[in-house]
């Protein structure tokens, strides 16, 4: 009974210690102004419980010992004190199971009782007991011998259970030591990967040739649309066919848009001046507010205002078209494409490259819109074709993964320890913080702060630093090759199926690689789609020029090549054949077989709402005539 009370006492102290640990840790962390997370609180509770438990054991142990001695003394009343002391010493030294100790005590007491049975006086008993004690020899040695002998007596199952418990105990101890070491790991930030990225991105040009100085000024001057304008459907869905012609908008819509475009006139001039520069180099910097210099935390703040500027440029082009200033309208579009090209050439951030491609597509589509509504002369078409061709004189850029490698290595140095087995391990606390940040940035992973144990477990099973880097290098090397392969080649050659690389990765071992998604296959597909849009736009200009000069459309694409209107034939990335050209009665059709890799006879693809969509899953991608896409 006294044992049960003692155990309950210890348990109570552990619980109280844990609760106190919780409060103390929160107060201390708040005083030190440290971010309080689950891991901190858990460590506080564990420390509190440990101290509470230790204090309880320190106080309860002597109490239990006293009770035990009291109980033993009751049995020893039948033999002289010196014999009792010997038995106590032997039993103390035995340190074995309670039941066994009790049995041995009883047997030794019985031995003394039997030996002293014939003694009549206490003195005689004491003397005889002294002799017996001598015969028993060293109490310590006897205790050890008895323990060993009794241990041999226990049945096999008990030995197995005892060894099992010992093994579990050792394992728990090892695990606790390992966890303490694992959880307290610190990263070693030794390389400034941002400096490497900037160095990699920096061209050998003077500031005069750098477009960023103009773009930076344009961003400073940029006037954001007011709330009323932002709420307008026409403003939100400005790419839709219904809103392309400015004169078809309501008076209110026209007025508000015109006003906003006029507010940004000076900005557009800066943008146009920048777009004509050879290169755009923007030195990336860490966020001033961040204590930790981590590339992943860098916010590409310039992308949003630049998108706004592109939007203003498109509206300006539409206003110019409405005013009959076609040359000016086309210039607006060319500016947007040139700005896009600048960011497409950026080697540092994939996001910037994708943003550049989106801007370029916007400009191309708007040129095609203008060509649909306005008739340009052969000379104007020729000039436009030349200007457009010169923008991508070095070829349309596909995705560049060079910067991603440095970025990933920066993530590794922030999230892993350095050195030791496997080159270092994933630090749970850093890993959680990183995943939380990923979630806030819209990655499709739900961060669950309360699931601290799974995060620790996942950190333990995650591949070590060297292995993670090796796997990332392997993937990036493969994907760097894959981004140069067209969707059709990927579709037809099973050995280059790109999407499988990430899917095949172990869910837990390479979790970090899976969530970071180095260059998903969709990215390279987008680059090919941008490239074919550019080629198709130039081809359409050449066909229209042919018609303007010869009075009829060419029979085949080869005809425009033969007549010198074009010196190449656009290749369809979804068939690896030329884009399909069809001459019609008073028009023509130019299309790609599209994402289903099949020629649907020029049938326009549609989205889920049954609206024409350029890059739909089914149907063809019709570049001309322009659809309501």
């Amino acid at each position, binding site marked *: 009974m006294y044992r049960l009370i003692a155990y309950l006492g210890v348990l109570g102290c552990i619980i109280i210690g844990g609760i106190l640990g919780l409060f103390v840790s929160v107060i201390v962390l708040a005083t030190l102004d440290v971010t309080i997370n689950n891991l901190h609180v858990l460590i506080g509770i564990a420390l509190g419980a440990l101290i509470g438990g230790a204090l309880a054991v320190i106080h309860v142990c002597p109490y239990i010992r006293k009770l035990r001695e009291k109980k033993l003394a009751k049995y020893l009343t039948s033999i002289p004190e010196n014999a009792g002391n010997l038995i106590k010493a032997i039993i103390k030294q035995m340190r074995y199971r309670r039941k066994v100790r009790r049995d041995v005590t009883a047997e030794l007491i019985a031995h003394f009782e039997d*030996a002293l049975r014939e003694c009549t006086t206490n003195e005689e008993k004491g003397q005889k007991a002294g002799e017996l004690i001598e015969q028993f020899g060293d109490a310590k040695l006897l205790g050890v011998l008895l323990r060993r*002998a009794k241990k041999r007596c226990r049945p096999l199952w008990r030995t197995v259970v005892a060894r099992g418990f010992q093994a579990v105990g050792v394992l728990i101890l090892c695990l606790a030591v390992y966890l303490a070491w694992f959880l307290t790991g610190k990263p070693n930030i030794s390389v400034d990967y941002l400096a490497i990225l900037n160095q990699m991105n920096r061209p050998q040009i003077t500031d005069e040739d750098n477009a960023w100085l103009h773009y930076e000024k344009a961003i400073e001057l940029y006037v954001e649309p007011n709330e009323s304008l932002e709420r307008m459907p026409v403003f939100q869905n400005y790419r839709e066919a219904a809103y392309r012609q400015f004169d078809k908008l309501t008076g209110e819509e026209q007025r508000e848009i015109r006003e906003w475009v006029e507010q940004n006139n000076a900005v557009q001039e800066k943008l146009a001046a920048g777009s004509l520069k050879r290169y755009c180099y923007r030195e990336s910097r860490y966020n001033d507010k961040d204590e930790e210099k981590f590339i992943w935390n860098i916010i590409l703040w310039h992308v949003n205002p630049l998108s706004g500027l592109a939007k203003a440029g498109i509206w300006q082009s539409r206003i110019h078209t409405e005013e009959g200033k076609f040359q000016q309208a086309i210039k607006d579009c060319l500016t947007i494409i040139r700005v896009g090209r600048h960011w497409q050439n950026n080697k540092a951030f994939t996001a910037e490259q994708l943003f550049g491609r989106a801007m370029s597509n916007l400009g191309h589509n708007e040129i095609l819109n203008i060509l649909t509504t306005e008739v340009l002369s052969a000379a104007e078409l020729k000039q436009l074709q030349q200007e457009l061709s010169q923008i991508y004189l070095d070829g349309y850029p596909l995705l560049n993964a060079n910067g991603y490698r440095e970025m990933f290595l920066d993530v590794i140095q922030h999230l892993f320890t350095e050195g030791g087995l496997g080159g270092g391990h994933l630090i749970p606390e850093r890993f959680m913080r990183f995943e939380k940040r990923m979630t806030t940035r819209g990655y499709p992973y739900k961060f669950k702060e309360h699931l601290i144990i799974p995060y620790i477990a996942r950190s333990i099973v995650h591949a070590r630093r060297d292995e993670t880097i090796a796997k990332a290098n392997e993937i990036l090397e493969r994907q760097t090759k894959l981004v140069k392969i067209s969707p059709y080649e990927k579709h037809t050659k099973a050995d280059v199926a790109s999407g499988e690389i990430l899917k095949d990765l172990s869910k837990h071992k390479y979790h970090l690689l899976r969530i970071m998604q180095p260059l998903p296959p969709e990215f390279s597909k987008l680059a090919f789609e941008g490239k074919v849009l550019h080629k198709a736009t130039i081809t359409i200009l050449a066909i229209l020029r042919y018609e303007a000069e010869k009075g009829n459309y060419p029979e085949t694409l080869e005809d425009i090549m033969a007549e010198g209107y074009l010196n190449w034939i656009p290749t369809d990335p979804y068939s690896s054949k030329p884009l399909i050209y069809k001459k019609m009665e008073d028009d023509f059709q130019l299309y790609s077989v599209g994402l289903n890799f099949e020629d649907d006879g020029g049938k326009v693809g549609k989205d889920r709402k049954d609206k024409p969509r350029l890059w739909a899953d089914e149907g063809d991608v019709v570049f001309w005539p322009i659809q309501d896409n």
Partner: protein
Amino acid sequence: MKFESQLLKGIAPVVVLEILSRGQMYGYELSQAIEQRSDEILTLGKGTLYPLLYNLEAKRLVKGKWEEAESGRKRRYYSITSKGKAQLARQKEELRELTTGLNLVFGGALSPA
């Protein structure tokens, strides 16, 4: 003395098994029996007796159980098992051969007069 102690240590298990083969006994009774039957030549130290008994028990040569003695007190009685009996027979034979060998070496000087 050391030699005697080593000799006794070697033959103690056989002696205990032999005594127990004649009937079950508790610890004190067994130590007394050894002394009496050996005419007090063999004296098993008490510090040796109980570890020895527990070791024999671990080897399943003897088994112990708590029983009430004639005096009404509880005692742990040890009795020889069938395995113990077989072991005893084997060791007795070995001991006999050893004695014969020793007698031959000492020219019969070890035989009781």
